[in-house]
């Protein structure tokens, strides 16, 4: 009998994910099932409320990608009632979004993903001098002296010897799939800690504009923080220079720590350039408008879709407001649709929870039937992967200059073909490439903001349609963003100034969804197929591929 391996809980993600796999006789994953095991009912809680409040509710879907739902939400309300936000608001939102993406990717790489590749215990046997030499050979980052690593090593040794291993307890240390030499492991542990310290600095840009992070403030019609270059209360020169400094430091960290580490680690795991490819269909709504959110041509991360790993063509016809393009199915999800519909466009969407899984506690889910709290989104009836890899591929095919250069540089440095991008390694590399690119945007936005303010434009909010009495009695809107994990959409229906319906389709819903009505797997499920396992008891390889998507299950089923 085929062996069934269950991994639940999956750690180092956001939310509650359960993976069930079936192994073949060679201990390769033959089949995989992805189940989201939490649901909160945000779409129902939103009904009847003031659409201007929706951003705060939807923001609480996730505290990791803590800005993107707020952005999608204010955009969908603005779209519905016809608000055009001022130029400064566009720039500030872009800057906040870019900040989020950069910080989230950094945290993902070091704190959520790294332990899949880095053996902490092996670092104890590293020669600090060797680590120092490696560090200095790949980067000018100053914290690289032998003494620095020696100190770290002795701290680490004491920590491990204390017997209290904390977050490292029961990790897969010594697993044969770990390939890094001790010296590189030690380097990675050092940067794990440095990144933990640094991530909290980047996010201060959110605090400046939104008052706090996680969950900074937004507002329908613009941004809440006024600008007065000569004032002492709002955005002024002091705050602007603080932002500039943060952007400088962020770019330095990415260029001198993240990217060199990524490449150094990837070199030992090139075999993962052929594992975990999955669907081969990629979708991006695009984001970071240079003009207006309704002008996809101006997006710095372009819109489009790639099917069947075809790097010669991007389908430009991605229109989430077209009722026939995006639909959510529930064939394997614990929901019902009135009228026995198979699939619904979010503007017609329904959320009627109905658990029909096994009685608790259970050993296995009944994966032939319904087995997840996630719905199953489809684009033109295709299962799609979204996220950094999708964005990078679409930009690459569309010939966005910097992306083409960076991707080619990485491929060359790792000495792998473009096809290696369709893989677990590709996903992880794309996230780094994107992080570098988006951090570059941050500088642009800073410059744009300063130029605008210099020219005397300090407007950040459009009040003309603030009052719901001036809104159409019945209207629908779509708001979206490219979240760190991919294409995010919010669809709203407003009646008499109140939310009549609100539907959210999230990047991780696309990626972590269960099978559709035709039995076709979601992106995680597809990517896990064929994963070799050295020891079925120790699911390290499963974690690698699943983590390469950066799962967020609270987002995925909300």
């Amino acid at each position, binding site marked *: 009998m085929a062996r069934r391996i269950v991994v*639940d809980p999956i750690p180092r993600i956001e939310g*509650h994910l359960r993976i069930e796999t079936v192994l073949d006789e060679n201990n390769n994953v033959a089949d995989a099932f992805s189940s989201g095991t939490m649901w909160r009912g*945000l779409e129902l809680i939103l009904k009847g409320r003031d659409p201007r409040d929706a951003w705060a*509710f939807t923001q*609480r879907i996730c505290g990791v990608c803590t800005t993107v739902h707020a952005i999608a939400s204010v955009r969908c309300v603005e779209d519905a009632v016809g608000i055009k936000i001022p130029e400064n608001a566009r720039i500030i939102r872009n800057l906040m979004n870019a900040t989020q993406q950069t910080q989230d990717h950094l945290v993902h790489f070091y704190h959520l993903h790294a332990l899949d590749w880095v053996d902490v215990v092996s670092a104890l046997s590293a020669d600090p001098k060797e680590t120092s030499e490696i560090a200095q050979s790949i980067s000018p980052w100053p914290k690289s002296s032998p003494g620095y690593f020696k100190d770290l090593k002795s*701290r680490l040794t004491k920590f491990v010897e204390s017997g209290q291993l904390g977050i490292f307890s029961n990790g897969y240390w010594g697993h044969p799939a770990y390939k890094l030499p001790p010296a590189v492991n030690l380097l990675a542990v050092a940067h794990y800690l440095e990144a933990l310290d640094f991530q909290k600095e980047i996010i*201060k840009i959110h605090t400046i504009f939104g008052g*706090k992070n996680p969950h900074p403030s937004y507002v329908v019609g613009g941004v809440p923080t006024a600008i007065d270059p000569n004032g002492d209360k709002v955005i002024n020169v002091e705050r602007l220079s603080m932002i500039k400094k943060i952007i400088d430091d962020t770019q330095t960290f990415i260029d001198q720590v993240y990217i060199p580490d990524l490449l150094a680690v990837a070199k030992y795991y090139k075999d993962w350039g052929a594992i975990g490819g999955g669907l081969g269909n990629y979708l991006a709504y695009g984001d970071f408008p240079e003009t207006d959110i309704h002008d996809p041509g101006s997006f710095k991360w372009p819109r489009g879709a790639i099917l069947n790993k075809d790097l010669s063509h991007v389908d430009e016809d991605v229109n989430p407001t077209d009722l026939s393009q995006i639909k959510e199915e529930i064939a394997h999800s614990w929901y019902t649709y009135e009228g026995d519909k198979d699939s619904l466009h979010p503007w017609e969407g329904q959320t009627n929870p109905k658990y029909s899984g096994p009685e608790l506690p259970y050993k296995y889910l009944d994966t032939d039937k319904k087995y997840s709290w996630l719905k199953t989104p489809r684009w033109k009836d295709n299962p799609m992967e979204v996220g950094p890899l999708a964005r990078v591929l679409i930009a690459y095919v569309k010939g966005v200059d910097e992306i083409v250069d960076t991707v080619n540089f990485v491929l060359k440095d790792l000495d792998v073909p473009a096809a290696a991008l369709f893989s677990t390694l590709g996903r992880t590399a794309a996230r780094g490439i994107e992080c570098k690119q988006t951090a570059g945007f941050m500088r642009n936005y800073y410059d744009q903001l300063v130029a605008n303010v210099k020219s005397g434009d300090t407007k*950040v909010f459009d*009040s003309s349609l603030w009052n719901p009495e001036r809104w159409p009695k019945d209207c629908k809107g779509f708001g979206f963003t490219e979240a760190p994990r991919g294409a995010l959409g919010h669809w709203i229906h407003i009646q008499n100034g109140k939310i009549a319906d609100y539907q959210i389709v999230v990047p991780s819903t696309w990626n972590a969804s269960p099978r559709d009505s035709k039995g076709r797997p979601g992106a995680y499920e597809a990517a896990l197929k064929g994963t070799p396992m050295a020891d079925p008891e120790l699911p390290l390889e499963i974690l690698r591929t699943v983590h390469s998507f950066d799962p967020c299950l609270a987002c995925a089923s909300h």
Partner: protein
Amino acid sequence: MKEKQTYAEIMEARGIDRREFMKYCSLLSVYLGLGAAGLPRMLKAMETKPRIPVIWLHGLECTCCTESFIRSAHPVVADIVLNMISLDYDDTLSAAAGHQLEAVRKQIMKEYKGQYILAVEGNAPTKDNGVYCMVAGDSFLNLLKETAADAMAVISWGTCASFGCVHNAKPNPTGAQPVHKLISGKPIVNVPGCPPIAEVMTGTIAHLLTFGKLPELDRQGRPKAFYGTRIHDKCSRRSYFDAGMFVESFDDEGAQKGWCLYKMGCKGPTTYNSCSSMKWNDGVSFPIQSGHPCIGCSEPNFWDNGPFYTRLANVPFVGTDSNADRIGLVAVGAAAAGVAAHAIGSAIKKKSDDNGTEE
């Protein structure tokens, strides 16, 4: 098991000298409202106590409490996780997965019976047997109860665990319940906020570590040190409140001058938190400073006390959303109408009475 390191030893091992260690402790002491008097006690605790094991569970939540936690500036989170506590089980940071991870939880519960801290982020759905949040094939509700049984104390992180937060906002589709309604017989500290301020979280832990017990709590189970006063009482815009100088619309003249956000719906006058004193993310700002009214995110029921941009809360009234003034006006109108009708009745009666008298 090997000899456990004390905090002082860890500091020393990290090359941190005695002076810095003292500085760090006095900073903590001030944060915890202990002042200089608390310092010796704290030093002693830090120098002699091994790391407390912590099991950190996630229920219905958004993980922003963890995210906030890792933004702590003093102490930085690496210090806490590697040196102050032993964070043995945490979905968000743990290396182990699946049953290896569950094994850690079980082991800590056994080995440190009555000595570990249970930290809970999020809350538990109680409807339909708890199927709205399942971990390792069982309900989170069961997991929570099981893990709480032998805990020394429970920390409820965030408004979710403390009061229910967005998940028990109307109509509470999953029957979500805060921790203190599900666990009894254990000391529980509520650390509300959506999320709580990082240094409030780490400060609460530091207190526990120092004194081996929970900080002093208020009537709603919150540490007095951090939830003792309202945002409004320490708000930098307060002088504008008293003066009656209010922002009337985002980006208006008042907004640019930093006037009071009361009329934009600010809930600072009814919200207990440290935002206006400690501020966020290493003191950079807080929502009100950055121009947005406080939405009251550390208060029970704050989602149902909206809408966020008006001063008066919505009050459901005969099937519609209304507010105190609208309901009041309707009631006065009804009384006036009743009086008018009665007056007409009285006039008719009087006429007939008078007629009767004349007869």
